[in-house]
């Protein structure tokens, strides 16, 4: 069986494509809580692309292959930084230590005031805090 000719560079673009496919896959799986929080499907694809690219870069002196392999690594690094570092939210021990829900009265989307104690009189309340800035 003959070896792949060392002068071919197109496989490195496949490796880059695999890395780039991570983000669309993440977006497609957004409704899955596990995929969304861990990013594992996305990182699995990106790591595959990066490792493939590095293997190719190690096997050829072609500069183009090495540059693209480097870009591949940079993309993974950027994604790791964004996903784990930039995405961090401040931790406030106050939330974990609350025992009773602080009461409040706030206007709803048409301006009618709604009070938590008023709603609790009707039954348990599921309160969802959205991030805001839709």
């Amino acid at each position: 069986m003959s070896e792949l000719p060392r002068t071919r560079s197109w496989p490195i673009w496949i490796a880059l494509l695999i890395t780039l496919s991570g983000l669309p896959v993440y977006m497609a799986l957004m409704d899955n809580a596990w995929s969304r929080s861990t990013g594992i499907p996305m990182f699995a694809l990106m790591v595959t692309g990066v490792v493939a690219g590095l293997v190719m870069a190690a096997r050829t002196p072609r500069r183009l292959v090495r540059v693209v392999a480097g870009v591949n690594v940079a993309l993974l690094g950027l994604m790791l930084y964004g996903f784990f570092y930039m995405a961090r939210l401040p931790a406030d021990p106050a939330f974990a230590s609350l025992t009773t829900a602080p009461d409040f009265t706030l206007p709803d989307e048409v301006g009618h005031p709604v009070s938590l104690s008023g709603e609790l009189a009707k039954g348990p309340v599921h309160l969802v805090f959205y991030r805001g800035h839709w």
Partner: protein
Amino acid sequence: MAVSVDPPSDSKRVVDKHKLNFSILADETHQVIRDYGLYHAGASHEGKDAAVPAHVLIDRTGRIAWRKRSDKIQDRPDPADVKAAIDGL
């Protein structure tokens, strides 16, 4: 019901767009999110403050029966976990 730091007009658009069957309350002064320990200063790109996304289940006595907050922006609790907690109330 939901709480957001956005003005009622913005929340109304969201309610209408997604045909929500619950209200979105406006916490424009950020007092409520501070009371719940969910204040995130300078959260948005423009440096505006926002809330840390969280779910709180409150029983009729006002006691917090279940709570879950996000550690990363993209985290949201699994709907199955939330439903299980509601069923357990």
